[in-house]
């Protein structure tokens, strides 16, 4: 029986992060995930907040909400779920390793969206435990957007074979044809990734974005990501995770400087494809390495028969931060 927790207003991430810091007992990860769904009914985005988000991420302001903005809307619901009693994983050190979204049809500015988030697919990983946070936006009962964020918790372990191959495949609304969902890992030590066991074999129609055919991508931009990008994105997205805002907090978690929000770099890549986005599409991203701020990253992209592939790397291209695959 799924317990439904219906919110009356959009929660603020700041309060939820503060709550996450408060000491409290958590059930052991072996107990599994609580059967719970967080909902917010009839949420409307305003032109002002979408415009501010668009300007930071590079979208042109249209009536259509960027898919990544719908993630932003469900993110406080994710935090609500993960800080509610009975959730086995702590927020501290939680790493967003991959994200996939399906846009069924454009969601519009000012449209009343019913938002929901649940957690599923708790599974072992070589470096800890993976969990999927699955979000959905509906309009009058009809799903317009679904998103799956895969998070890695490195404080916990779970008995069993580490996720890899088919076992990392997430079940759920995105399973059909959406490709990588629980796949690759986030190399927090910023060394060459040895997580190949978690990278699925080519599962997207046009091949894995991390596959050998990345050579066909062509450089489409050098992006200067400024030192205050974390603060600017936090201001428009509400994600005030200190690792993106303060060098002190970043150092406490093992990074020399602040790091960019993964969903911010994702949004910028999606924004550069905005003019070519069809009404309905699927997009998957793997966050392979953190992007330290400030830095200049190389954006490379290629059109393919049914969409686009893209990646962000360092200048030389030997360090891949993000890969994206879009079909539609």
């Amino acid at each position: 029986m799924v317990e439904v927790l219906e919110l009356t207003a959009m929660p603020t991430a700041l309060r939820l992060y503060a709550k996450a810091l408060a000491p409290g007992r958590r059930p052991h990860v072996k107990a599994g995930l609580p059967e719970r769904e967080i909902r917010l009914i009839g949420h409307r985005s305003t032109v002002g907040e979408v415009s501010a988000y668009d300007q930071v991420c590079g979208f042109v302001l249209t009536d259509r909400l960027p898919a990544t903005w719908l993630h932003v809307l469900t993110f406080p619901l994710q935090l609500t779920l993960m800080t509610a009693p009975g959730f086995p994983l702590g927020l501290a050190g939680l790493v967003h390793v991959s994200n996939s979204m399906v846009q069924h049809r454009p969601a519009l500015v000012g449209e009343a969206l019913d938002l929901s988030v649940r957690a599923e697919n708790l599974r072992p990983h070589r470096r800890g435990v993976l969990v999927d946070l699955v979000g959905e936006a509906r309009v009058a009962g009809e799903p317009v957007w679904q998103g799956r964020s895969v998070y890695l918790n490195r404080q916990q372990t779970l008995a069993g074979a580490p996720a890899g191959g088919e076992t990392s495949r997430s079940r759920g609304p995105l399973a059909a044809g959406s490709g990588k969902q629980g796949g690759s890992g986030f190399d927090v030590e910023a060394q060459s990734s040895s997580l190949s066991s978690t990278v699925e074999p080519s599962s997207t129609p046009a091949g894995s974005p991390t596959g050998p055919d990345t050579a066909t991508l062509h450089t489409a931009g050098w992006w200067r990501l400024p030192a205050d990008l974390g603060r600017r994105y936090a201001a428009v997205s509400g994600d005030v995770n200190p690792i993106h805002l303060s060098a002190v907090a970043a150092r406490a978690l093992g990074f020399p400087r602040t790091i960019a929000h993964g969903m911010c770099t994702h949004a910028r890549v999606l924004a550069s494809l905005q003019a070519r986005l069809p009404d309905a599409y699927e997009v998957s991203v793997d966050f392979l390495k953190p992007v330290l701020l400030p830095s200049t990253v190389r954006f490379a992209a290629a059109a393919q028969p049914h969409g686009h592939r893209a990646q962000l790397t360092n200048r030389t291209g030997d360090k891949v931060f993000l890969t994206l695959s879009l079909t539609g």
Partner: protein
Amino acid sequence: MAALRNAVIVGGNRVPFGRIGGAYRSATNLDLLTAAIDGLAGRFGLAGERIGEVGAGAVLKHSRDFNLTREAVLSSALSATTPAYDVQQACATSLTAAVQLSSRIRVGQLDVAIAGGVDSASDSPIAVNDRLRRKLLRLNAAKTPFDRVKTLASVRPSDLTPEVPQAAERRTGLNMGQHQALTTLQWGITREAQDELAAASHHNLARAWADGFFDDLVTPYLGQSIDQSLRPDTSIEKLAALRPVFGDGVDASMTAGNSTPLSDGAAVVLLADEEWARQRSLPVLARIVDAETAAVDYLLGDEGLLMAPAHATGRLLTRNQLALQDFDLYEIHEAFASTVLCTLAAWESDEYCRDTLGLGGALGSIDRSKLNVNGSSLAAGHPFAATGARILATLAKLLAERGSGSRGLLSVCAAGGQGVVAIVEAV
């Protein structure tokens, strides 16, 4: 030389115009122009198509937007291989773009083109003042930390006063309304006549919206589906109650009600070779027969700043051997109600047409029931560069409805003492 082809207006698209600080306060020129182009692309199935050329522009423009139109094309559904350029002739921007591109189509250099304009009074650029700008440039060029500190230390609080763009003439310091107030006085235009014209503009535009006339000329944007400045329930009595804002003393007659509001918006028109359009089963509404641009000496001469269209009209009619009365419709941009009335008065003046325009005599009066029949800028709003394209698309559709051969005269005045007048004819 090969015979000239027929360049036709296929249709137009615009966003509903917004009031300053209104529905589009968060939108940039790039956002607005992209929305207008995308709406046009959607209406005529141009997604992924390479258009011969897109010419558009803005009057209030950020320095980063030097390539605004090309950027909008890249953000739009049009093929990224569509070339584009920016054009700027104040309030005549998009009409000038349409005239130029239409000529390119006629001589066979292009098959299809988009002309347009955009302006956002809400998102207007604010520049640092000249003293600070020079110091910042010096700071940027400074080689040593000492030079940098020295330059920074030279910044005075007074340097921080920003420069806000104004609708003021650079050479006279008078804003557009103050200039027009002088012309209004010169031509003896009454307050009552101005308010009457303003009320008619609102009522005509409201009727056109209610009739669904704009259904295929406008695409809603950011939740706005009708022109935000439109007041269907305004009246001559209500307008008469407003205080004058331009001009001095008892003779001041120009109010916020009979002057155009500052606005945000974008408009585009699709132009094509007639054959090209017919092969694709696209509508063929009208064509630009001819156009004339005039400029007046408003500095040392005694001509009003916004009187250039009167000059352009005289030359255009002479060249085309037409009388002012040979038109089914007249579209005169309502920068101010009195601009329209001064233009009409000028055409009616024997003395002015003879002595100032060098014509044989007065061009005469027009049937006022044929003037701005579906409203104009007083009611719709006036995002400067977008206005020409708004009027051209409206006029083309109105003429097409009246049938082949019906003829319209389109007049737009512009800052700097300029004006563009075009003859448009239903195909």
